């Protein structure tokens, strides 16, 4: 979906480029020629021409010249480097768009330049989300770098716009990645703790984000369950008591607290109600277990949830 939006933005930018070429044709002949070449996808020729414009005494200080320069690099990026995370063309495009903005004191080209910067920003956001789905433990820096670029360019593209929603989604995505890494290596609790820390950032960015609280609860509860699963014939009675104390802290002070927050935000969500039932069962809160069992039955009867397949 993100890529189709990028294509739409790109199309709009392209439409905006050419009406201006006629207006500015006489004042900025070199830039105008570069824009035409770009439209014809003669990128090398367009670059050569815009370099001439950037060296020209009259054209070099015009924001439109830098806008076209950025546009050409952006088109090259789209044509050749969309799958290259460290695309030089995208860097060059963004630098030129920023220069155009800084020169455009009368805001003649600001709207279209910001739109192009939004394209650049969205491409970094897409990269950031994709990177969160594939990094190995400790390898989130690339995703974070891409996300930082997204924020930087969104700041220019839409000054003052809150990015809270994106902060939340990005951090949840990092949290999910660490959760999956932990699932493939459950003996490494540092992965679970990382997952929790990213979900916690998401929950701080948006205190109404149900998934963030729910997932913090689940990771903590799972940590306890995995410890319990290790209990066996070789477990000493002293270890059994110590394990229980650790697990009680995870379940009572962390899982339950966060699942309660999720429940307050959405008391009709089946996975949350079910989660609370299991958490209370682990704590032997019999009345609460019965309450949430009835809630599950009610939600099933009202057709609001279906029980997971066994």
């Amino acid at each position: 979906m993100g890529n189709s939006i990028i294509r739409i933005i790109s199309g709009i930018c392209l439409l905006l480029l050419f009406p201006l070429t006629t207006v500015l044709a006489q004042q900025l002949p070199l830039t105008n020629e570069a824009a035409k070449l770009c439209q014809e996808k003669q990128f090398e020729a367009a670059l050569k021409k815009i370099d001439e414009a950037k060296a020209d005494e009259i054209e070099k200080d015009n924001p439109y010249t830098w806008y076209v320069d950025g546009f050409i690099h952006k088109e090259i990026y789209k044509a050749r480097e969309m799958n290259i995370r460290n695309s030089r063309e995208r860097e060059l495009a963004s630098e030129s768009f920023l220069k155009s903005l800084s020169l455009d004191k009368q805001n003649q080209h600001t709207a279209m330049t910001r739109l192009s910067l939004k394209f650049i920003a969205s491409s970094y956001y897409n990269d950031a989300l994709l990177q969160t789905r594939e990094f190995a433990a400790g390898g989130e820096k690339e995703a974070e770098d891409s996300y930082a670029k997204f924020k930087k360019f969104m700041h220019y593209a839409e000054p003052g716009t809150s990015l809270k929603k994106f902060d939340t989604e990005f951090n949840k995505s990092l949290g999910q990645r660490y959760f999956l890494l932990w699932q493939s290596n459950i003996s490494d609790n540092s992965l679970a703790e990382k997952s929790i820390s990213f979900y916690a950032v998401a929950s701080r960015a948006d205190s109404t984000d149900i998934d963030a609280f729910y997932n913090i609860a689940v990771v903590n509860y799972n940590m306890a369950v995995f410890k319990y699963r290790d209990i066996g014939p070789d477990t000493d009675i002293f270890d059994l008591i110590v394990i229980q104390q650790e697990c009680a802290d995870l379940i009572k002070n962390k899982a339950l607290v966060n699942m309660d927050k999720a429940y307050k935000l959405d008391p009709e969500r089946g996975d949350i109600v079910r989660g609370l039932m299991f958490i209370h069962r682990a704590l032997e809160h019999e009345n609460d277990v019965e309450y949430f069992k009835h809630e599950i039955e009610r939600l099933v009867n009202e057709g609001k949830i279906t029980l997971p397949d066994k």
Partner: protein
Amino acid sequence: MPKPLNCFILLFLLSLSSGVLRSQVIPEDNTVAMIRANYLYQFANNNNWPLDTKKGKFYVAILGNMDVFDIMSSRYGTKPIGSQSLDVIFLKEAPNSSAYYHIIYVDKSRKADLPKIVKEFKDKSTLIVTNWDGALAQGADINFRNVDGSIRFELSKTAMENKKITPGIKILQWAIQ
């Protein structure tokens, strides 16, 4: 800013937040049953039964809790208790003394059966384990209690000794007073 751009930006913002973030799934393990099963195994291993019960199998009967039975059988069922092999049995009804069990676990859901079981097994070296408040006064030997989210146990040393079951040091050490 022209109107079409506003519409477009809204579409753009919506699209950016459309990433699919799956909620994690909570496991269904009955953790309380896991702990109780382990305690039953600890009780079997760390208490001492009279010599005449050390022949044949070591019998642990579970009344009223299938999860404890399942975990006990699958995790501990192949482990020996001293020189005896462990046999875990699920009871559908309150047992009578025609069969001997080293341990009977009576779940709270079968609370009403305790007086009968206590009476049936009062002359046997059968450790009766329960999980509700006041069970020791009703004749249980060991009773599970929840203390701040952890399962601990209380015991009646006298009741155990009357049945010729000697509580082990570890059991006495970790029992709550």
